[in-house]
């Protein structure tokens, strides 16, 4: 039975897969908002994401 967490933007349920890993991205099926899954002490939380996309390194 997959965990469900409410979207912080639209309130819809977001299904979290059982084999979810820390850092994984999930999207709200209703509004499309992306979240980063944060797992701490077995507790699953969703964090609004902000990730850099640029040219890096040699």
């Amino acid at each position: 039975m997959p965990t469900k967490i409410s979207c912080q933007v639209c309130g819809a349920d977001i299904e979290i897969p059982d084999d979810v890993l820390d850092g994984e991205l999930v999207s709200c099926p209703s509004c499309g908002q992306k979240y980063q899954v944060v797992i701490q002490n077995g507790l699953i939380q969703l964090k609004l994401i902000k990730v850099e996309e640029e040219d890096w390194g040699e």
Partner: protein
Amino acid sequence: MLVIVKVGGSVIRKGVDTLIREIPELLNNGHRVVLIHGGGYFINELMERMGLKPKFVTSPSGVTSRYTDLETLRVYVMGMMYLNKELVSRLQGVGVNAIGLSGVDGGLLRARRRESMIIIDERGRERVVDGGYTGKIEGANKDFIMRLLNDGFTPVIAPIAMDIKTGGALNVDGDQALEVLSTSLTPNYAVILTDVDGVLINGKVINKVSAAEAQELFKSPEVRGGMKRKVYTAAQLAGRGIYTIISNGVINRPITTAINGFG
């Protein structure tokens, strides 16, 4: 005249004899030179020799790139500083008072570490992971370089920057180092030396472009991979009024040829 030259790894691999021979000539004519070098190929060789597998990550848009974990960073610093000392030795051998530096030395190149990145994992899912040890250069210690130049030194700079937060070394792109140093030092010319004759479009060499033309080139499907980065750098610098040339580094007098070809 001040010339900032990025010597690509492909040039180092094929041989820097003609480049080394040209530097004392330029200095004797009153010019000042700052060299920035690459050397990615050598890092690959070293990792292989140490039995380390290069790590790669795939971005959501499908682009695969090297991942610089701590072990990779260590090999990167070793390898780049080795090439740096090789270049300095070669220059000292022809009477040039070269001084080799990483961006950590004297806080020469300060960068922001890429803290996190999104990758596509083995299961095909998007995931946020630690960004590893690559950085985006935010500033150069201009005073330090100017002082070295005024004291008669020829700086040779490795593509390693200093993490603003920790002081640690970061893998940075050599072309980006050229861009930041050129923006800061405003040289007469910025020269990118590779092992080909500039950018090839429809089989024709393009090595002189205006800012607008560079922007166009950047969108061309014929400009790919490392060359795309170089054209982007050229476009950025041209936009700031700095003459920028992408040229062949393994010919005779590569820097003079590049500059004369620009005229």
